[in-house]
């Protein structure tokens, strides 16, 4: 199998405070060196994902999952190390995707599709499928700003899932939708997986990860703490005990 995602000794730090004005900068420089406190969001992570593999990305809040996902999708650039990917990437990094609140659902479908690399014909072709999946026919001409968070999540997922991508990235989108929609999404994700596309899936829901992925990566304070079978990852995270709490999302 060929590699689909290669993450090689990748680190990313964030500046916690920006001294932006000249005055602040001068004052800080005087007080012994101008240096902003930084925070390592991803710390020397290395792993490889093969083509067609479905990988769950797990870890507590603030462990660097979203940052890692953004590094893979190309939204962020690593400070050290390299990220390499093969083929087209699509997915949903945050629930509201890149929707423009003042544009209608219809316009946003075209805009979002174009951002994800589709051309006009492709969106035309997939338009009905997207609307059907999001179940938003009645609100197509309503500005997305007036959508509920569930509705935007549905639309975002529907557009992202319609792209013929080689790598599909999903970040906790399923946390927002209602159970029927979650179910639909999970079905769609398994379909994507069965088509042999690479999946990187962030979730706290161990049942969902177990159903979709064979392999899980666990991040701890930015470092890759575990890389292996999902069952062991769940054990590693000590998530086993409260496994049942939101099991409904895991039904496929």
């Amino acid at each position, binding site marked *: 199998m060929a590699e689909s995602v*290669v993450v090689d000794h990748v680190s990313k730090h964030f500046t916690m405070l920006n001294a*932006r*004005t000249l005055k602040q900068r001068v004052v800080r420089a005087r007080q012994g060196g101008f240096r902003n406190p930084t925070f390592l969001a991803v710390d020397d992570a290395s792993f490889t994902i093969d*083509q067609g593999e479905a990988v769950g990305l797990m870890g507590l809040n603030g462990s660097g999952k979203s940052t890692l996902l953004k590094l893979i*999708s*190309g*939204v962020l650039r690593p400070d050290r190390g390299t990220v*390499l*990917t093969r083929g087209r990437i699509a997915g949903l990094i945050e629930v509201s995707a*890149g929707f423009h609140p003042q544009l209608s659902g219809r316009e946003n479908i075209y805009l979002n599709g174009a951002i994800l690399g589709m051309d006009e014909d492709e969106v035309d072709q997939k338009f009905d499928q997207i609307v059907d999946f999001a179940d938003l026919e009645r609100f197509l001409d309503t500005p997305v700003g007036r959508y509920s968070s569930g509705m935007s999540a549905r639309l975002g997922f529907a557009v992202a899932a319609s792209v013929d991508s080689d790598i599909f990235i999903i970040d906790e989108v399923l946390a927002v939708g209602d159970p029927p929609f979650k179910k639909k999404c999970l079905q769609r994700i398994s379909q994507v997986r069965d088509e042999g596309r690479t999946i990187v899936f962030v979730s706290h829901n161990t049942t969902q990860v177990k159903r979709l992925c064979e392999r899980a990566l666990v991040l701890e304070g930015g470092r890759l703490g575990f890389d292996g079978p999902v069952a062991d990852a769940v054990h590693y995270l000590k998530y086993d005990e409260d496994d049942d709490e939101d099991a409904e999302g895991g039904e496929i």
Partner: protein
Amino acid sequence: MTTAVGDHPLGPLRPPGDTTGLFGVFRRRYLLKLLVQKELRVRYQASLLGLAWSYMKPLVRFSMYYFVIGLLLGLRDSVPLFALHIFTAMIMTSFFTETLNAGTKSVVKNKSLVRKMNVPREMFPVASTAVTTYHMIPQFTIVIAACLLVGWSPDRTAFIAGALGISIMLTISLAVALAFSALNVTFRDIGNFVETIGMMVMWSAPQLYPWDFVVRIIGGTWLEQVYLANPVAMATLLNQRAFWTPAIPPGEATEIMPLMPEHLLTRGFIMLGCCLLLVGVAQLIFSRLEGNFAERL
């Protein structure tokens, strides 16, 4: 199966972000088109006059200039076709200030996209330059109509000057929009800086006074060269050479001489070359800063 680079059907392993800069923007013209449409749609949404604002504002400004400078200060009497003189200049100066303002804000305004989606970020300043260009079309229509009305007899130089002026304006605006949109992410005081530049631009091009005034005061000195090194002034002069001078009735032009600087076209071509270089520099600045956009916003 091997992992050899190059022979995989999906192509080689590549860094995920699009780093081809402006080339990437022009490769994804469909997305650019949608972003331009979005901008046109959103800019005047929920406003009563809508798109009419983009005609109202220049119209009011033009009337004020004409009244104060033309009538009260009396330039109307010494400059032939003073209204056309102002308007041909205003197209250029307001194009520049509009791109400067909108372009500078373009990345910050689209932060939801920049933070979440993988787009060539140059897309945003380019789109706002394109929006301003779109707004310029009716203004040119007005100028051409006015020229035809008073009797416009353009020579070959006029056409070359016109094309050159627009090219200079487009390239310098793009360069400025690119560089400032990136700088604005890190340094938000760019906004104030931009306002100041906008104000200076209005006075630094022969808009409210003819070129002849400049020659009389600073002609032959190094200040004249500085004046002409300003791309906006150069584009303004070229635009006036295209529309204003060929419309002046023969005989009237003798009152103010010279109408235009010497070697205008040569200077224009050199200026265009410099502006293209500046686009390159702006792209370098943009690429340098772009890596931090998603986290800074």
